[in-house]
């Protein structure tokens, strides 16, 4: 009986004839980290070189070093205010979306009747480009933060809701049966089986929602606002300050990357048992 031994064999074991396992090179072992960095750096270099040699009109085209200068310029003026406004809209919108989506999503997953009643509406609203409602929302909620929060909510609620519903509905029936068989009451079944198995679906929903929320914030500000990253981008684009405009885009890209990384961290916190079950990402 293999009491307590780890499932994998001992690492770096020497064979009976004194052989060692083939060594992985330093580069090979770190390729999942190095390759993405290398691609980004290479693209930046190519972009920079092309930008400098071809010498296109700076009104229509820019390249990394100029964009960096634009960024420094922005940081000295309105960047922090704009970033704060956009981040607030994003955060409030996401919070509200989650607050609405979680109870409804869970209920729709639990109750067949509710699912049949609401699924057509939810699916329709999820696949409709609800951004077309943005002008109306601006009329209702004004130029300030609240109209953007509203846009984020109508965009981001549905992916979270749909994924939660799906998660509850696809909970492994054997596990539900096992828990009940071992004496779990209804609330135990939810606490110990349904909720944990829904976590990955929840995180997937959040990931989709984040992307849509970013679009909501920026496009909302683009349409009508007095501050925010979308406002800044729009105004710089209109006066052909292309480097500053692209610097704003770069800030949005970085913001999204940070949020996505935070989400991965959250998933590892919420679902530690999944560590090692999926090695990609």
């Amino acid at each position: 009986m293999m009491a307590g031994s780890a499932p994998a064999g001992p690492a770096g074991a020497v064979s009976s004839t004194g052989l060692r396992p083939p060594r992985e090179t330093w580069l090979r072992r770190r390729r999942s980290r190095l390759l993405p960095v290398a691609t980004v750096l290479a693209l930046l270099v190519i972009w920079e070189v092309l930008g400098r040699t071809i010498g296109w009109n700076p009104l229509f085209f820019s390249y990394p070093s100029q964009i960096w200068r634009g960024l420094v310029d922005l940081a000295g003026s309105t960047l922090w205010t704009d970033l704060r406004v956009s981040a607030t809209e994003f955060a409030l919108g996401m919070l509200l979306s989650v607050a609405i989506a979680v109870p409804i999503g869970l209920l729709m997953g639990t109750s067949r009747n509710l699912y049949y009643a609401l699924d057509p509406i939810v699916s329709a609203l999820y696949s409709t480009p609800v951004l077309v409602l943005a002008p109306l929302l601006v009329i209702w909620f004004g130029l300030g933060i609240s109209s953007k929060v509203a846009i984020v909510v109508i965009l981001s609620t549905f992916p979270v809701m749909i994924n939660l519903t799906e998660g509850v509905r696809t909970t492994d029936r054997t596990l539900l049966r096992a828990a009940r068989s071992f004496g779990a009451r209804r609330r135990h079944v939810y606490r110990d089986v349904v909720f944990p198995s829904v976590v990955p679906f929840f995180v997937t929903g959040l990931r989709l929602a984040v992307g849509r929320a970013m679009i909501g914030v920026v496009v909302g500000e683009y349409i009508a606002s007095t501050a925010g990253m979308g406002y800044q981008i729009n105004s710089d684009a209109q006066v052909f300050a292309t480097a500053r405009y692209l610097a704003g885009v770069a800030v949005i890209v970085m913001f999204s990357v940070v949020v996505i990384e935070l989400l991965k961290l959250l998933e590892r916190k919420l679902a530690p048992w999944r560590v090692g079950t999926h090695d990609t990402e």
Partner: protein
Amino acid sequence: MSQAIQPQPLGAPAGRAQPLVTVSEVTFWYGSKLILDNVSCRIEEGEFVSLIGASGCGKSTLLQLLDGVLEPAHGEIRVGGAPATVRDATRAMVYQNFALLPWRTVLRNVRLGLDYRRRDLSGRERDDLARHYLDRVGLAGTESLYPHQLSGGMQQRVGLARAFAVQPSLLLMDEPFGALDAQNAEILREEVRALVAEERRTVVFVTHNLDEALQLSDRVLLMGSSPGRICADIDLAGPKSDPDAWRHRHYGEHRARLWDFLKAEVTRAQRRVPERERR
């Protein structure tokens, strides 16, 4: 703790008053499909009973009815004197695909039934009890691993520890070795046999494997399919004085009898027009 881990056979009646399990005229439908048709049987305390039949004959359904998670549409099932759906008499199930909670560590998986059923024990006592059975199936030291870090054989050991930990008056096993490779299945079979004997558990065991049934059981119930019903009740337990030798002597004869029946059943099932919409 020492008295907590003593096996407690549920209310052994003085003088063979009643069997532990009585199934009387049970009929069950899934939707409009008749799964079990007028099934009756009784199981004495301490018996090891195997259910054998072609796939889709309702063996697993019968097991879930005994577990009380399903309710018969007609007829009655009593376990330890009470209806099966009243869940006083503890039962525990061992599943073919283990059914461990992926988000619980090994120890907390073994504790599952204790956490729901043995609120009279403190957290420490439940831990100790779970550890005792984890140790008993040879998995000491794996307490804090997650199921996906274990091999199939080890996962099923966790499943066994979880079932034995609640010290059930009725232990239900649904093809517990069906998902394991032949060697692991053989090893686990021996261990289950030892555990059941040591703790004097009453077992209902579903299997496709004739030799498994012949090795382990005191009695085999042969089930026919479409609709599921009990066709034969074969006693494999010999005289109390020398059970093993008796079992040995009659092995071939019993096997032939079981196989004749099963072969006919399976062939019959294959010839039937496929109206495949089981579950």
